[in-house]
């Protein structure tokens, strides 16, 4: 069973109270968007830039936000997804120099993983996953959104999201802790 260890969605509370409290929304969502990009890219570089880009886009288009169609956090994370997709599609071949040390080395991930930060370790582990699975991890653990919202953002069913995440975490945990993971699981 997956523990729903997510940050309470304060922005949803704000939605039900009439006029949105933009300061509260920013305080709630900025760290989550920031971590979404950290988990998705698996490094620190460019994360601030992408976070800023996401909020600037959203703030410019606030007048177009339709609260009757989606929650604000859904809308914002959709923008973040698009910003991330644009970045990955356009610039993934041109990593900045300061990101060079964080790029996973394909041939010996296990050998080098010990010497990297935890984030780099995670990046090395999820680098082999398909894009959809990487997105699930970033939304679940970076953005701390619940399975229902992930389902809205990815187009999957909520139960499918739960199943996929369960398998993913199990696989990652085995790689993270080593072969004796079954003992630690309990």
């Amino acid at each position, binding site marked *: *069973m*997956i523990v729903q260890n997510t940050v309470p969605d304060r922005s949803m509370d704000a939605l039900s109270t009439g006029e949105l409290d933009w300061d509260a929304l920013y305080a709630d969502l*900025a760290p989550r968007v*920031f971590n979404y990009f950290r988990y998705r890219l698996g490094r620190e570089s460019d994360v601030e830039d992408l976070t800023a880009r996401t909020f600037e886009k959203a703030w410019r288009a606030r007048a177009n936000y339709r609260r009757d169609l989606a929650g604000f956090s859904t809308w914002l994370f959709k923008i973040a997804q698009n910003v991330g997709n644009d970045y990955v599609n356009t610039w993934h071949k041109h990593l900045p120099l300061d990101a060079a040390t964080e790029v996973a080395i394909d041939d010996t991930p296990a050998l080098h993983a010990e010497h990297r930060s*935890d984030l780099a370790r995670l990046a090395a582990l999820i680098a082999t996953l398909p894009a959809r699975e990487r997105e699930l991890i970033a939304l679940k*653990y970076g953005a701390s959104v619940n399975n229902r919202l992930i389902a809205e953002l990815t187009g999957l069913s909520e139960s499918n999201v739960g199943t996929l995440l369960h398998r993913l*975490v199990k696989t990652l945990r085995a790689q993270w802790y080593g072969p004796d993971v079954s003992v630690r*699981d309990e």
Partner: protein
Amino acid sequence: MNDDFLHRLRKSPPPGFLNELKARLDRQPRLSHPRRSGFGRGLIVGFLVAGVAFAVTSVSLTGLPTSAAQFFSAPVQFFGRITAGYGSADREANHTQIKAVPLSPWFPTPVTAQPASAPESAPAFDGSPGANSATGTGASSTSSGAIVQPTLLAASVAVQDELFPMLQTALPERVGGVRINLITKPAKDVFTSLCKSSYPDRDPYLVVTTRRVAADPICQREQRTSIVELNVGYQAISLVRSKLYGPLSLSSRDLFLALAQKVPNPEHPDVLIDNPYTTWNQLDPALPYDAIQIYGPMRDSPEGRLTARLLLDAGCNTFAALSALRERDGAAFETACSTLRTDRAYQEFSPGRNDYTDMLAVTPTALGIAWLGARMPSAGLILNPIDGIAPDYPAVATHTYPASRALYVSLSTYNINSLGDYRVNNIVWSIMSMSPWTLPLQEARNLWGFVQLNDTERAATLADLKNQKTVPFGQRR
């Protein structure tokens, strides 16, 4: 399930970053009012559009209504006839009805129904010059007697042969209730019917051509003072090249020598020889030592013929020997000045292909063809001037850009008066509004190179028509 190892990777963003971003966001203008539901607005717009369509249909079918009842009943009956379907007998009768008149800059005066017993008051118009047979049927009534069907009119439009595919594609069979009979004519004969006084004036007869009526020998000889000439658009093409090496400094003479199948022998200019030039510097030492390579449309296609005409014509006229040939042997002159070479210097590669830009990008010394009236092909290409003149609308409109020419409609004032100025206006408007973008690709290629007039020139053309500004023979306009 233990997933703490994933949660504990989270960290808070640097406070400095958060504060700076928040300050940036706060500087953005405050949001406007939230968008209202579009349904109500859509409903209102729908009613307005339907109302306007209803009114226009009613006025077009019946002229200005004499009563409110007629205003509402006419379109209802019209659509009722359509939905009821045509019988074979009715179809012939229905073809004689005047269809809705397209809107134009000045709104047409209402169509006046003509009774069958008085055909003289609305002259019977026939397409063929010299023939006075009536093509219209007499006025009749519907079974309900509510709508009087006016006489069907026809007008002949003589088109210079190389423009015929374009007009055939773009001009509808009927314009504002007038049936259009397109007739193709060689360029040298295109004005004959209009200018010869032996043809009766009452035949509505429009001429669409690239030639000026004042320069035509027959028209000059006849000295008719009732000819109106209207500029209805242009044809133009431009050369494009990869940005890598910049534009080539080409003259129209260089282009002729680079592209024509036969060129004057440098030692004996009176003799035409197969084009021997293979590199640009053979034409002009100032040009680079690059192979002559131009990608253009198929030689036998309408675009190819237009390319040959526009790119070769200006340069051809710079050779005295060829100008003399024009007087001596017109056919030979036409062949020499409108035939593209068939070797590798000119390669058939349609500008409509998706990879046209890529082809020019990978061969940066090559030139390509682009249509001035079209969207520019790519940001990676530049327009190549000819004779130092960049291909833009002002250069085309002032006739300074060599690879362009104007299109004219010529007709007599009697034709305007007999057909009705608003009907002529609609025909001219239809020609001026031809656009390849509204046609399927296979048909649109007939219109490549057509450049519509801008609003100012269009208004000037329609004003000339309205004022019936005639061509003063004996002096060029």
